[in-house]
């Protein structure tokens, strides 16, 4: 005979405001099989949990229903409390009264009736729940980090310094990411490359880090602690064991007008190239999409001139399989393509550039060696207009979010410009200045007070070229005046966006992503680096716009989660797995096709003499992920899913 305890949480007033908890308690106390019902202000608090522990012992409960918040929030809390009192944790279930009832309804009477219904359904399920034992699986203590920007570099170094092996995969020929392109960094104006390149070298030299650049993740199989990752090593056409970065090939390559990705199109590179002088690894790559040899079959100059004989046109992409226990996603961001914003004349006027292009112009390693020069005629601009929130916070552009870093980097640009062009004037059109961060507001003040940046609160309405000048018409809403500026150069602070095809990567990884293709964290406040898939963590701007300190902090957090995961030899997994009833299974094996994990195999049952009695399907609980696709496919009703059995679900349905 079932003896179920029901515990109704007020959640302060989050639930109690809309749901009459006392009425719910009295109603569910009368349900058949309910031996105990009580309500309390905060069930998740220690005294609340104590009530559950006490009731289990005193009333000898066989199951527990906690009607509170989402099980995504506190199911582990309450299951642990039950376990402490000797009740199998899988005999404890939650009814979601907060997210699915009190927060979304206003009518108290109807919400209360719904709460009673929801609890009744769950009571019927718990009555039929079976005690389950957690499954223990071994852990491969080796991590994969996807993306070699500052977040990926930091995560890889932190994990490797913790003594665990790391594979760092980067799709470009070199690690470094966007940070390698920056000139100086806010709010201290450190030179970006000076602080980044030593870390890049650390990665290359670390005995625990296996660096795989010019590579992409193609597939991820398995589960937490036991992933098998397929990585495509793209053909570089250069044997990196032989290449010594002498650059002779580049000097002779006839294809020399390819816009450089690293210099954001402000300079050119060759078809065979090293992305930038401090690249790690410092090895050449042939861009096959533009190389004459690959397009026409004629050329082959680089092969002839290479003193190390490293050029290999026959090289093929290679698929490498690696076993890892955890994955850190650190794929970073892109800036919004300026072509999407026609109104500011980007692409039409050469001297309208985006923020990353300004970084390259200001950078000592950039196309102008750090001298601020206009792209059109290489003269020094005497007045520069910076436009903030280009794309960002603009629902018409489909980007309602704030890109977070632009206020700061535009102030930095204005300062760098003034430091190099002393008689120049920077104008900044802004909506709001958002400078929340250590030393950030002081930095903005410095730009205004010491470097004379002129902030104009308003939008730019029109931008056109006239007699070599860019005429910027806008409004200053604080003085309520129209403004017209004859600018020599215009810098657009375009929105930060997710990298293209991030939805595809999220699908490969089996993690959630939002409508902007940023990766979703498991909980916005309490689990900011975890994802919906156990063992997959996030770092940096792949999750949301972030600056360098935030990206580095999150990378460290992700690394500590990975190291925590690796600290045990075995992992505990929820025993939500499918089982086959061998008596009724007819070995049609439809389930084998339904299983996405290859967890089901044919099994022969033989007698002692070795004669075949029958063939059945068999589930490998180590591989089974508990989706239940096989259960719904089974024609003879011979497979069931622990925790979500047909009986349990039908009982819930019948209780409406």
């Amino acid at each position, binding site marked *: 005979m079932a003896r179920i305890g029901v515990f109704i949480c007020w959640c302060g007033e989050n639930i109690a405001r809309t749901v009459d908890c006392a009425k719910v308690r009295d109603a569910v106390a009368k349900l058949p099989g309910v031996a105990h019902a009580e309500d309390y202000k905060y069930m998740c608090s220690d005294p609340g949990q104590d009530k559950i522990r006490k009731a289990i012992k005193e009333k000898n409960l066989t199951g527990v229903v906690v009607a509170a918040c989402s099980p995504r929030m506190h199911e582990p809390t309450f299951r642990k409390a039950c376990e402490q009192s000797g009740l199998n944790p899988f005999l404890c279930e939650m009814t979601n009264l907060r997210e699915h009832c009190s927060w979304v309804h206003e009518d108290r009477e109807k919400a209360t009736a719904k709460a009673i219904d929801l609890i009744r359904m769950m009571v019927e399920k718990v009555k039929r729940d079976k005690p389950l034992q957690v499954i223990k699986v071994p852990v491969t203590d080796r991590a994969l980090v996807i993306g070699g920007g500052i977040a990926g570099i930091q995560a890889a170094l932190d994990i490797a310094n913790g003594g665990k092996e790391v594979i760092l995969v980067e799709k470009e020929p070199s690690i470094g990411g966007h940070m390698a392109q920056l000139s100086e960094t806010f709010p201290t104006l450190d030179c970006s490359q000076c602080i980044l390149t030593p870390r890049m070298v650390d990665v290359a030299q670390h005995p625990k880090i296996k660096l795989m650049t010019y590579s992409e993740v193609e597939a991820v199989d398995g589960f937490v602690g036991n992933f098998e990752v397929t990585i495509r090593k793209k053909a570089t056409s250069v044997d990196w064991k032989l290449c010594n970065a002498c650059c002779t090939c580049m000097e002779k390559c006839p294809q020399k007008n390819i816009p450089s990705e690293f210099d954001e199109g402000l300079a050119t590179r060759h078809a065979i190239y090293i992305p930038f002088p401090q690249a790690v690894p410092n090895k050449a790559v042939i861009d096959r999409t533009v190389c004459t040899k690959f397009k026409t079959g004629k050329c082959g100059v680089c092969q002839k001139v290479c003193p190390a004989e490293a050029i290999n046109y026959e090289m093929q992409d290679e698929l490498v399989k690696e076993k890892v226990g955890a994955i850190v996603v650190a794929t970073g961001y892109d800036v919004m393509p300026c072509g999407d914003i026609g109104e500011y004349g980007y692409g039409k006027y050469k001297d309208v550039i985006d923020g990353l292009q300004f970084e390259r112009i200001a950078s000592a390693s950039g196309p102008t060696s750090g001298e601020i020069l206009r792209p059109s005629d290489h003269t020094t601009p005497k007045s520069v207009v910076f436009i903030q929130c280009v794309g960002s916070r603009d629902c018409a552009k489909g980007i309602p979010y704030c890109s977070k870093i632009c206020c700061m980097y535009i102030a930095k640009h204005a300062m760098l410009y003034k430091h190099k062009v002393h008689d120049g004037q920077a104008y900044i059109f802004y909506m709001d200045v958002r400078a929340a961060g250590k030393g950030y507001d002081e930095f903005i003040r410095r730009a205004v007070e010491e470097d004379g940046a002129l902030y104009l609160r308003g939008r730019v309405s029109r931008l056109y070229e006239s007699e070599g000048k860019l005429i910027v018409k806008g409004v200053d809403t604080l003085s309520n005046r129209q403004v017209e500026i004859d600018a020599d150069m215009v810098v657009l602070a375009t929105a930060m966006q997710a990298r293209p095809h991030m939805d595809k990567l999220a699908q490969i990884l089996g993690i959630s992503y939002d409508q902007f293709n940023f990766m979703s964290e498991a909980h916005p406040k309490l689990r900011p680096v975890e994802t919906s898939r156990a063992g997959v963590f996030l770092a940096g701007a792949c999750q949301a716009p972030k600056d360098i300190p935030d990206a580095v902090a999150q990378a460290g957090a992700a690394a500590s989660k990975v190291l925590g995961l690796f600290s045990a030899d075995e992992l505990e997994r929820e025993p939500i797995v499918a089982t086959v009833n061998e008596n009724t299974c007819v070995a049609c094996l439809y389930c084998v096709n339904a299983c996405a994990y290859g967890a089901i195999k044919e099994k022969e049952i033989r007698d002692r003499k070795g004669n075949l009695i029958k063939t059945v399907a068999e589930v490998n609980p180590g591989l089974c992920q508990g989706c239940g*696709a096989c259960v719904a496919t089974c024609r003879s009703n011979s497979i069931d899913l622990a925790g979500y059995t047909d009986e349990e679900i039908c009982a*819930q349905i019948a209780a*409406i």
Partner: protein
Amino acid sequence: MSTQTEAKEAATNKGTFEPKIIAFVCNWCTYAGADLAGTSRMKYLPNVRIIKLPCTGRIDTHFIIKAFEEGADGVLVSGCHPGDCHYTSGNYHARRRFAMFRELMDFLGLEMDRLQFSWVSAAEGAKWTQVVDDVIKKVQKLGPNKKFAGLKHD
């Protein structure tokens, strides 16, 4: 009872009929989407009862028949968008199964507005409220499910 008379009855009951809708949702996308609607304090009609499953691929069509048998006035099935399934392909199984099952239910005379399939991701709290309100309003127009309720033999 014919659909017409039922519809008439529904019209008379207009405003008072509170249907019960069972929603079979997957744990990873739609359940989380419904959670998001909650944390964002979006409002929707209270007639829906969620049953959480690991994946829409777990939904045996007999759950839906059972729901109508037990007196549910409408059934909503919702999971991850195509391509986003936490279990790679469970929602594709569900979609195929559902396409066939819908035709069968249509043949059996179920009003198709009582049975809805949708994709709601973990980021789509607002869509969840729309889908739920939409189904409830459609079912309210149809009136109570009398055709299938009570078919169950004891």
